[in-house]
């Protein structure tokens, strides 16, 4: 049944996360960006929302409310409305936990899920991006080769969030087969022999408060049971669909934030003895923002609902991400334009959002899950 209404439970979660974004993220975002720092206090507070642990079955000490890609999309929109890099930081452990829930063997779940059931923030992460300009996920350069009963992993990874504090990384590599079908994921402890995590996080455009690291794997040997999903392996297409949907949801939240800030500003800002919002050029820009925020949201929700049904969401997720990446950038760009010179100053958040928007939407994307 085609329906656009969140459940009451989802509306409650939306509200809770929105309040958190308002009280804990909005004010932190600027100083964290300027100082390039991520307060542990924030991670801990976000952890207490139970966004990661909630999805873990009670059997493993989790909240047991179960995985819901739709609820997840709603959560990510609200968090991103607060601040995208802080949202990505808070959800980094999910980059490890959710694939584990979806593809892990019972053995793997039993071993690793309890790590995330505690009351303290526990970092784990996902390593997928690589240092090439024409990075293409269906053609990874990090290789997983059979070595005895286990595997040997070699390659370079980039922008691995919280890698320096993560207990484990989920390393995505190219297995025996070509293309997305050949994607494999391996659970690698941070101190694994042959894996080198850069001492300093990478400096990038935007995302300045989220430490993301380069990781080099030089014939890192892992046992067969480190292969996520065991002999079955993972469903690479589904993993990508999840990542793309999540990334589009973050873009949606960012875009909505820009729109909701630009609207009142345009009504207050007077030029030529009139609020600029009374000029069609500005008013129509705002109308476009409203149109695109709605349109993006529907595409994100559709992809999420297909994931929830366990259906093939590759098409829907690619549509949602392709659309969102284009519109989020345009929207952040126009938002800055509405603020004019003030938008270019590090005073209002629009210039920060402009940077985050570009950084978010160029990665095919692994900012959250």
């Amino acid at each position, binding site marked *: 049944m*085609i*329906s*656009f209404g969140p459940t009451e439970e989802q509306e409650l979660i939306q509200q809770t996360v929105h309040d958190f974004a308002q009280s804990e993220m909005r004010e932190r975002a600027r100083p964290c960006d300027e100082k390039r720092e991520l307060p542990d206090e924030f991670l801990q507070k976000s952890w207490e929302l139970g966004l990661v642990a909630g999805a873990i079955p009670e059997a493993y000490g989790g909240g047991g409310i179960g995985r819901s890609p739709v609820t997840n999309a709603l959560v990510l929109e609200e968090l991103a409305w607060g601040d995208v890099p802080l949202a990505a930081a808070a959800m980094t452990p999910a980059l490890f936990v959710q694939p584990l829930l979806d593809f892990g063997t019972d053995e793997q779940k039993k071993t690793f899920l309890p790590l995330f059931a505690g009351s303290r923030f526990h970092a784990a992460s996902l390593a997928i991006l690589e240092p090439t300009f024409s990075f*293409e996920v269906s053609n990874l350069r990090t290789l997983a080769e059979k070595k005895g009963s286990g595997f040997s992993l070699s390659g370079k990874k980039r922008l691995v969030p919280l890698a320096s504090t993560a207990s484990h990384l989920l390393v995505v590599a190219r297995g025996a087969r070509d293309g997305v079908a050949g994607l494999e994921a391996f659970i690698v402890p941070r101190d694994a022999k042959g894996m080198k995590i850069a001492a300093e996080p990478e400096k990038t455009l935007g995302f300045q408060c989220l430490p993301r690291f380069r990781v080099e794997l030089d014939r890192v040997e892992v046992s067969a049971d480190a292969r996520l999903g065991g002999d079955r392996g993972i469903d690479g297409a589904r993993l990508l669909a999840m990542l793309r949907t999540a990334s589009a949801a973050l873009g949606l939240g960012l875009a909505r934030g820009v729109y909701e800030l630009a609207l009142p500003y345009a009504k207050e800002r007077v030029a030529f003895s009139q609020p600029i919002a009374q000029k069609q050029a500005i008013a*129509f820009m705002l109308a476009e923002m409203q149109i695109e925020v709605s349109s993006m949201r529907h595409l994100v929700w559709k992809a999420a609902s297909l994931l929830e049904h366990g259906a093939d969401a590759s098409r829907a997720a690619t549509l949602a991400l392709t659309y969102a990446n284009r519109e989020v950038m345009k929207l952040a760009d126009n938002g800055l334009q509405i603020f004019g010179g003030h938008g270019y100053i590090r005073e209002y958040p629009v210039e920060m959002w402009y940077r985050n928007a570009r950084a978010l939407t160029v990665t095919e994307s692994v900012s959250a899950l």
Partner: protein
Amino acid sequence: MIDYTLSERDEQVLAAVREEALICRKYARYYDEHEEEFAPAELPEAKDFKNPFALLGKRDELDSSMGVMSMLVTAGQTWGDYTVRMRRGTGGLGNAALRASGTPEQQNRWGAKTLAMAITEPGCGSDSKAVQTTAVLDGEEWVLNGEKIFVTTGCRAEGVVVWATIDKAAGRAGIKSFIVMKETPGFEVTHKEKKLGIRADDTAAYVFRDCRIPRDHLLGGDESIPKEGAGGFKGVMKTFNMTRPAVAAIGLGIAQAALDFTRDSLAAEGIEVDWSAGPHARSAAQQALIEIEADIEAAMLDVLHATWLSGESKPNNLEASISKAKGGEIARTATQRCLELLGSLGISQDFLIEKWFRDCRITDIYEGTGQIQRLIIARDILGYSAAELS
């Protein structure tokens, strides 16, 4: 809940609609080239098909709402062809107006007739408050005088809902809707417009010369002129809440047909989208196919959202304009881009896509241009009056 799956029953209805729609394509070119003729209300092959709206029957909780399904059915029909349809039902825009604002008596009396909607005049485009057609009460009759253009289904409709002012000084408040049946003396269908597309569709021009109708033909029956000047017009505007998404759905059905043809034609020549791979694995054509598909899907979801809201009896004025603005824009760009992908072979009249490109272009014009829709949206989100944002 948030869900986008269709129930089995939903799927069956839409499958039947698509099957019918394919039959329409056999006739599409003919009626495009024979603009002076009208496609029959029912095609020979149609008689075995049930009316899809009848097929919908009552919706149970697993089925999509009537509003949502009617949009999918509409898009499914125009996916075949816009101007040739199996059956138009009481498809006139005037019927929507009657349903929204008519008294029970009026609904019983005219509900079964096909009613066109006559708003636009040579002088005014989307500026509905500038209506020049007048209605003067003379005893127990209204006397109508004026000209109307771009009247959709105006030639074949059995009657029409006409906008006329009963008091020019009152501006919008003075505008009322009147039901005029075809045989009424003084009501003349002057000609059928020659158009870029939707050629078989009848778009008529009307003239009313001292056309007299009974007093009870005033839609809704309310002859008073609200002080605020909003009421009467609002009543009229309300009808747009249902028609804006429907008009978008009409265009998007055509756009979808163009995309499907483009996708299949290129696939036959080895160009296909890999939905899992990323941008650097794509050709320029594959990237364009993905963008066009995303645009159409986003616009269609806006349509479904607007109608879903009405089903939940939630206000949808903003969402109706969003769906019309987006649908109108995508109907333009999607068909343009599809033809670009097909190169010089796509413009051949051996195929229908060049016709769909022409048909689609009306979407962003009638029932309020994209500019008008954005104005409505901007006023809504900014809380501005027409005076504050004009």
